[in-house]
């Protein structure tokens, strides 16, 4: 494979030929997520809960089995067969460095990562290494492995030191490896969380820019070649104060989740009280703070995350997939790079490949998934007594505090309660499911995650294949 670099607003090979990167994210492997992997809560709390309730041997069998089966060379072969040429690979620092022994690195984690890059190289895929869960948490969400919505990275020098040192270590190991496209320094950074009304004027740009510059400087000590992918504040939605002047090999990365791929309604048609069609999809992309910022600075754009909710009734899913098609066509027309979220999941949200719903593993965890839907799914209204009770609670709070004319931020409150508390309560019941199983049995159950056992969503597969497959054009 040929080394990639940024030239103007394009990504080019060594000979100057432009390349268009199209591919998948691999959520749920080196950064396990609640709805990707089907457990409730945050990965690091699950590791403690499993060890405490099921014992350390079973916990190890569980997490090792998971890593072994969730992603293999067969997955890469499948991605390559669909025509993709890039894999965005999210990772959680905990797979590489323990909190108890900072700056000491875990060879198991690096062995897996190096193997993944080798597989990708063999099948012609570039890899973007994406720091999805940084030391001290860089955003308040589950996907940063943050259990209680804390964000400490930007204010804690020590977490920054560890974060920067891990990037240097990664760059040291992958310097000179052409199969690595580059380093996505932080996924969806957020410099503040809001307890009250969201205030778009309050971002800590100095905090974010400082962290980026320190990481970039450390990487450049050992690796002058690989691309840096940068994302903006507020979950990659705000870019106005972002500094991109410190390196000349930068791709701007943005995320483009939209109502038309995520909410109910006909498409084209009324979705979430708004008329959505291709024009609106295009408009949303072109008006994105990241798109405009990239244009002003003449940088290439990677739409690092987007995707359609597909684990919904089929007729609805067709609408969501149609909106996703229009997104991809928009990206193609704009000449930007894209990676869809996500390759594989448990089958409750947006995985292109999903666990077989009849698999033993899926059936085993079904009661926990149902309980999650009943009172621990912070993204949805749950029409159950427990789910409705949270709405009553929010109403009661607003009513009691009405004199302050400052309603609580309901999205955050729901997340705080339903993820922070309820989902972690459910981890206890999740761990109980494995308490009496032999380690070998646990490993067998987790084979449900192998690509051979998973099911694809055919119309999504067709859509992706159509746009990923190399054509005869210059951008092949």
């Amino acid at each position, binding site marked *: 494979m040929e080394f990639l670099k940024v030239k103007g607003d394009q990504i080019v090979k060594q000979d100057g030929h432009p390349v268009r990167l199209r591919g998948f994210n691999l959520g749920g492997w080196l950064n396990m997520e609640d709805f990707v992997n089907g457990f409730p809560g945050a990965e690091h709390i699950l590791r403690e809960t499993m060890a405490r309730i099921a014992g350390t041997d079973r916990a190890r069998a569980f997490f090792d089995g998971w890593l072994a089966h969730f992603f293999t060379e067969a997955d890469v072969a499948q991605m390559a067969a669909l025509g993709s040429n890039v894999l965005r690979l999210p990772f959680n620092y905990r797979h590489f460095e323990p909190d108890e022994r900072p700056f000491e690195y875990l060879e198991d984690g690096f062995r897996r990562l190096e193997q993944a890059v080798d597989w990708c190289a063999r099948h012609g895929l570039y890899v973007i290494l994406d720091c999805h869960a940084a030391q001290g948490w860089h955003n308040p969400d589950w996907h940063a492995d943050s259990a209680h919505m*804390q964000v400490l990275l930007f204010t804690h020098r020590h977490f920054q030191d560890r974060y920067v040192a891990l990037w240097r270590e990664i760059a040291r190991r992958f310097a000179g490896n052409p199969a690595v496209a580059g380093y996505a320094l932080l996924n969806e950074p957020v410099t503040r969380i809001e*307890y009250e009304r969201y205030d778009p004027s*309050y971002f800590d740009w100095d905090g974010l820019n400082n962290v980026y510059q320190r990481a970039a400087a450390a990487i450049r000590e050992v690796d002058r070649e690989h691309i840096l992918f940068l994302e903006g504040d507020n979950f990659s939605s705000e870019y106005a104060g972002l500094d991109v002047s410190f390196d000349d090999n930068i791709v701007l990365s943005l995320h483009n989740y939209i109502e038309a791929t995520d909410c109910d309604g006909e498409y084209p048609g009324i979705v979430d009280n708004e008329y959505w069609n291709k024009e609106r999809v295009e408009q949303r992309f072109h008006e994105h703070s990241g798109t405009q910022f990239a244009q002003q600075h003449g940088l290439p754009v990677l739409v690092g995350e987007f995707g359609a909710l597909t684990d919904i009734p089929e007729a609805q899913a067709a609408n969501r997939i149609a909106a996703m098609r229009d997104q991809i066509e928009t990206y193609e027309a704009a000449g930007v790079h894209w990676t869809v979220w996500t390759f594989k999941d448990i089958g409750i949200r947006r995985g292109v490949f999903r666990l077989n719903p009849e698999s033993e593993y899926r059936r085993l965890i079904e009661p926990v998934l149902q309980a999650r839907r009943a009172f621990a799914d912070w993204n949805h209204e749950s029409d159950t007594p*427990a789910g409705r009770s949270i709405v*009553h*609670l929010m109403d*009661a709070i607003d*009513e009691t505090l009405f004199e302050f004319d400052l309603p*609580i931020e309901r999205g955050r409150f729901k997340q705080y309660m339903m993820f922070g*508390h309820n989902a972690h309560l459910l981890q206890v019941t999740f761990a109980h499911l494995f308490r009496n199983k032999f380690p070998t049995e646990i490993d067998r159950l987790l084979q449900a995650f192998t690509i051979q056992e998973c099911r694809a969503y055919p119309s999504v597969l067709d859509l992706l294949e159509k746009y990923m497959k190399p054509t005869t054009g210059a951008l092949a």
Partner: protein
Amino acid sequence: MELLKAHNRQILTASGTPIRLRGYNIGGWLNMEDFINGFVGAEHNLRATMARILGKEKAQFFFDRLLDYFFTEDDVKAMAEIGCNVLRLPFNYRHFERDDRPFEYIEDGFKRLDLAFDWCAKHDIYIILDFHAVQGWQNPDWHSDNAHVHIMLYHHKLFQDRFVGLWEQMARRYGKHPALAGYDLMNEPSTRVRYEDYDSPDYDWAALNAVHRGVAAAIRKIDPDHIIFIEGDNFSCEYDGLDVTFDDNLVVSTHNYMSSTGGGKPYPGEIDDLYWNRDIVAAELGMHSGTRLAFKHRKPIFVGEFGVWYAGYPDALPYRVAALDDQLGVFDSAGIHWAIWTWKDIASMGSFNLDPESEYVRLIQPIQRAKKEAADWEGEMPKGAVARAMKGTADAIDDYLTEAGLGAQIDRRWFAQYTLFGYLAQFLQVPFASSLQNKSETEIDRILQAFQLKNCVKNTALFDTVKKHLC
């Protein structure tokens, strides 16, 4: 003042005479607390919220004046006058070290502490330095300045290193000071947060002992002489696995809050299904896990915290004070050292309270009312619509879990603290800060003078009971 040493079950002066340490905690000064200082939530979050809403300078002005007025030589003098010979001094690391500049120390914080040492030396009061809010949080509660009930200290080496680093600073700066009694390594450690059973006895003794031993070894390299005070797990309630053998000059510190000293029930009388009288008070102390450990290892006992919670029950104060009188009497018979919680606060536990007519108390009235109605996570749940809704949520989740046979239950105490403190109290910091938004620095200065001892109101019944056991 003579150097103090733990010897067998006593604390001795350098000349070998036994001394009994008795006095106050100064909660709310170098570790600000929600119910003591009258804001809501955690201090570090309040500082961020205030800076955002008032601007950095005015916010800094507010906190500086609060520190200036909350504790002065007048306070020390008043303690000395009634016979106190010790002050337990809780501190939050954030007054001495910043998260964005670890291992660099803040001279402003040490200047204040220097003053406290000089005042105490002048009035013959020993100081126990009490590390109350540790880097990375040693427990999930508000008093460790923990906003989101998340404990990181025991797993994070770098937080432990900073914890050790600050103790080394303290030992270097105060290790030769005549007023120093010793180092209370960590207030109310708690190694475990649980989602299903808050009171489960599953403690991480290896982690707690390792942190204690590490910090004690670092202190001993600098200061071989002063006493190490050590507390047990689960907020200083559990001592079974606690290592107290690594140092000879060590005092076991316990906390001794009891049902008889809080709330509105008559005393002597039935509280929480038990008839409380002096015998039960004595048994609570005698059977305390920390007492038993100290006895086994022949170590002195310092009850570093106990006290009366009278907020919300003004008529029951005579009962609470009677229970306190019995408790102090039991301490007297057992020769126990003690420091009562706390010297001064808005209106809950202090021997001195802010004047209810003061401008500050009137200013925070709406916030205090909102806290009481919506966000009071301690002991007394809020009584109104929020409480009913909370109960409704917990019931509905428990019903679901029971019906589905999932074998878990909500721990309601944890659930309340998580929601009401972790979210709602931090939320209420916004109107707290807004209420100061239009005040000038002169006005803020005047408002905060309410914290000066001369402007406070003495809780006579409580104060006189403490005084009685100091003579």
